[in-house]
């Protein structure tokens, strides 16, 4: 079912990871990316891997859910893996037809796949443990300084939270419309690419119509409740950084530092 797609899905919970301030989590993900891209040896990659494993452990998110999140990227991962595996210079391990596999190739491939996995998983850990609302709140606050240069931070974050809010609704609606067309004998599963693309038209038309209708209704509802942009708007739940947040940030800074040191040492 379409609904089972885990895209930016939030798994409610009450673990220390869930309770962290969204700003902390956002900054930590950025720090994590820095560490991840710095790391290029077995030890440094091991360090970033352990960091994520530790965070996942605390968050009680099933590792299976993270692996499932990789599915849409499978093609890209396999593609890069093959490129790395066959086209890296180094000591040849074995040859087959026009292909040759080198020790460097295997090493780089493993590193690459692991990196992509960690990159995707760390982002998923963020969205799995942070509600979309918290996430956009955090972003708005982090980007607040940009308001000085007239960057529409509030508008952007409002648009994002609305978009996030409606993703599940639209997916559900797509499911419903597809079912209704299937009930009239529409066939989405067989035939060539052209035929399948054509079969999508009966879904897109009603989906767009209803998306526009929803957008219109939402705009009216917001106006009725006197929404007038971000100016002077206060929040029901104000974000607050706690001791845990500062400690977590410190920990991630240490991970980045650790990765840099390990790379310098050539490990």
């Amino acid at each position, binding site marked *: 079912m379409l609904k089972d797609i885990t895209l930016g899905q939030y798994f409610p919970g009450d673990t220390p990871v869930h309770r962290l301030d969204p700003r902390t989590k956002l900054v930590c993900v950025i720090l994590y990316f820095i560490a991840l891209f710095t790391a290029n040896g077995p030890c440094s990659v091991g360090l970033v891997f352990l960091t994520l494993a530790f965070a996942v452990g605390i968050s009680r998110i099933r590792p299976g859910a993270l692996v499932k999140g990789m599915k849409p990227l499978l093609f890209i991962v396999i593609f890069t893996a093959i490129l790395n595996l066959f086209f890296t210079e180094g000591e040849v391990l074995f040859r087959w037809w026009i292909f040759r596999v080198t020790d460097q190739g295997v090493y780089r491939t493993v590193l690459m796949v692991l990196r992509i996995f960690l990159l995707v998983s760390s982002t998923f850990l963020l969205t799995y443990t942070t509600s979309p609302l918290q996430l956009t709140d955090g972003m708005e606050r982090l980007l607040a300084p940009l308001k000085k240069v007239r960057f529409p931070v509030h508008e952007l974050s409002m648009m994002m939270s609305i978009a996030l809010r409606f993703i599940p609704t639209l997916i559900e609606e797509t499911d419903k419309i597809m079912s*209704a067309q299937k*009930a*009239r004998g529409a066939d989405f599963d067989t035939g060539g690419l052209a035929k399948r693309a054509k079969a999508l038209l009966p879904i897109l038309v009603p989906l767009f119509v209803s998306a526009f209708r929803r957008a219109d209704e939402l705009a009216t509802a917001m106006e009725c409740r006197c929404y007038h942009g971000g100016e002077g708007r206060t929040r029901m739940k104000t974000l607050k950084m706690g001791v845990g947040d500062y400690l977590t940030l410190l920990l991630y800074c240490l991970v980045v530092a650790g990765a840099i040191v390990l790379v310098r040492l050539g490990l």
Partner: protein
Amino acid sequence: MADIRLESLRHVYSRGTPFEKTALDDVSLDIPSGQYVAILGHTGSGKSTLIQHLNGLLAPTSGRVLFDGEDIHRSKEALRDIRFRVGLVFQYPEYQLFEETVYRDIAFGPKNMGLSESEIDEHVRLGARFAGVDESLFSLSPLELSGGQKRRIAIAGVMAMEPDVLVLDEPIAGLDPAGCRALLKNIKEYHRSTHGTVILVTHDMDVAASEAQRLVVMNKGAVALDGTPAEIFSRPTELRSMGLDIPDATALAQALRERGVEIPESIYTPRFLAGVLLSRNGEGPC
């Protein structure tokens, strides 16, 4: 023939995720060809889930769906054939129209059946007549019509496949009284003239009481009550405990009985109640 049989059907949504939900639990049901059945139940009792099994849109987690004694999931071809023989009208079908003209939207089903142009035309006109869609609307865009008209068009699109079994999920929800009456009349007419099975999902007791031959009451994913309207509506306390009501006529008859008027228990349509009351003429204290 078009006999439907459900054997200990179970359906679990989002299995293996934190959102797992058992929507149907051990539902067994026999619906013989030609019956007019109303499926009743509180919101979330599993009515929509149940009917989506009838044409194989949902596959049971366990259990079987048999059509004329054969499992509908036995092959892809069989399943596709079932989609045409069991016509399913979804809840709020008006949001699912997509073609440029009303005619082409109604023709979508028949076209998928692989009929010839002239047969398609015949089916479209038949479906339109049964659903009360005037032929003068055929060349208009469905998007510019009113909600009630759109719903009729969507229903016509399913009736145009001339299914042996017509399943409608809350077809009257949100219609004005006149539109509601007209639609029910069309469905009844369809039932009478095609001798097909009609399965009507509703939570309006008065509609169920006056239209259907048999009522199936769902509660928490299981069949709670199953019987004729007279049998079902003689158990008002059970119905109320499931968040349902009894028909107005039954409630009125009950109130009269409590005040000492002698009327039989099994009253569930206004017409019947009126008949009983009128036949009492001449009796009474004065």
